[in-house]
């Protein structure tokens, strides 16, 4: 473990990808690109989880590998989320003939 890449490299990397994802959600107007950005954010959290599991000291009574299991569950949930998200984007596309989130503006006030 001594010659390994240090933990803070992983944390910097995940923080960077989280920031990239968040920027993407806030700036991109294409609904599919927003979906991609959300995926990047979820995966940043996954990197954190696995890195903390690898380097951290598990608390007493918390089981041997909660971080990895949580990461696996997140991957599954992310897949489900994207499936639903794409479905909703398609539904909106059929109505507006556009995937631009700024165009969906029936509701306001």
């Amino acid at each position: 473990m001594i010659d390994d890449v240090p933990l803070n490299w992983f944390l910097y990397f995940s923080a960077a990808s989280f920031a990239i994802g968040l920027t993407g959600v806030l700036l991109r107007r294409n609904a599919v690109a927003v979906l991609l950005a959300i995926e990047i954010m979820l995966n940043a959290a996954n990197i954190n989880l696995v890195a903390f599991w690898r380097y951290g000291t598990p608390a007493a009574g918390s089981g041997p590998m909660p971080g990895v299991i949580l990461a696996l569950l997140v991957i599954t949930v992310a897949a489900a989320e994207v499936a639903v998200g794409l479905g909703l984007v398609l539904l909106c596309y059929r109505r507006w003939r556009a995937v631009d989130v700024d165009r969906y503006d029936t509701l306001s006030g």
Partner: protein
Amino acid sequence: MPPNVVPLDLRDFLCVAPAVVLALWGLVVVAADLARFRRLDHESRRVACGRVTLIGVGLALASAVFLAWVDALAQSDADRLVSLFGDSLGDYFGRTDGLIFFGTQARGLAVDVVNVLLLTLLAMVVWMSTAYRFTDDVGEYFALMLWSTVGMMLLAASEELAMMFIALETTTICLYIATAFERSRRRSPEAGLKFFIYGSVSSALFLYGLSLVYGLTGSTYFDAIGRMLHAGEPGLAGNLAGASALVLILVGFGFKVAAVPFQQWAPDVYEGAPAPVSAWIATGSKVAGFLVMLKVFVHAMGPWSHPTNSVMGPGWLGLVAVVAGVTMTYGNLAALAQTNFKRMLAYSSIAHAGYLLVGVAAASVSTEGPTSAGAVVYYLVVYALANLGAFAVAAWLARDKGTEAIADLAGLGGRSPFLAVCVGVLMFSLIGVPPFAGFFGKLYIFMEAMRQGPSDARIILTWLVALGLLNSVVSAFYYVRVLKVMYLREPSGRPIEPAKPALALPIVATAALVTVLGVFPGPLVELSRAVAFPMLTARRLDAPAADDLPAPAPAPGNPDRPTD
């Protein structure tokens, strides 16, 4: 370290019987719709599907009540359980340690009470859905409502971060789809997509915060996190990872319960979704969300509430107090300008989230400990009932007029006098006028806030209570406007038709309940306090006590630790 595998106790599934029943019944509903009801015309197909769904909700309700009876017996007379269920099962039911599935889920009377509440609300929502046509895919719609409830029940009972995340996603993913179900209208898919984007971004923020908490404490169990933080260094001063974890988790919950400044999705989604779905987002998912928020903030992150004994110092108490104040003020002021009934209810539910956050803040400083969260539980029950009735009115408008303008309620006082009185009761309860239950809900939350913790906290919370009272006065204006339209305005066009039983019953039942709970608040208050206590103290018996724990060893090379 080789993973030491503990065998799963299959009897644990008995304790989540209501969730299991609902999950399977969702499949039954879809299959029955495909095989039998598809050939019927839309009206009878919808009613038939609704009835089948109600049977499933009834079964789940029966199992929840049965479990409540068993758990009540376990507390009073555990020996009788052994004679009733035999040695193995009787012993199992007689245990009152309260955690199942490796400690990831709570069980016991508190959980059963919450399940009964959620299932009762669900039954009304399902019946409300049979009243009018808003979608052609009725089987899938009802199945989604059942599955989202499975998520809510597991969410309210979760005691661990992974379980909580899964349950949260189960709930919201089902609700994203249900929101977009009214495909004949443009606004419904739009609301679904907006809900999805806001919701999944907030889950991602939340998950990142959660991963930092896991990194800091090495555990994902609420109780273990609480003990770890308790034993570790106090506060967030200079602790970048801890502070960002706290803020990110607060943002995540802020989205889920629609607190300012993360409330933008709520009005659009409540307006765009079919009325029964809005009702379920506003009641069921909010009840479960606030219960788990209490667990995470008061139980797991309680030591970070006000570590230096000053409210505006490091810690989440000051943040939550500020968010609560801003949320209730914004919600009430924005609701004043609304003409759409559902949109008005959305802003009013933002305002109520503000009051509830006062309760969350109060629960962490109260001198009474965990039972003080009972005020939040009581408020949630009352709020959910009154709001459900109000959304039934919105469904009535949507069925009859196709819109939900408040102005369309004109003349209701003369045409359906009894229902108009019931709507009036619901509005008064939402304002918080005695003797209706909404008044006592606010009273108990504000009383808990006044019960002093540290003296500094008392001053801040007193200001918050004063702001809350002022806000209640503001909220009276827009709720009373509904009454004014009902009684004093003549309908300009075609007046609203009388409601069908499917709509009238939820309105009458919720109005009756908020009146009864307002006149006799005692039993429910006692029950809420009894529910709150185990919810915020559940811990694994095999886990070591806080005193035996060594301080968390800093991970090598972690830049975010102040000890480095």
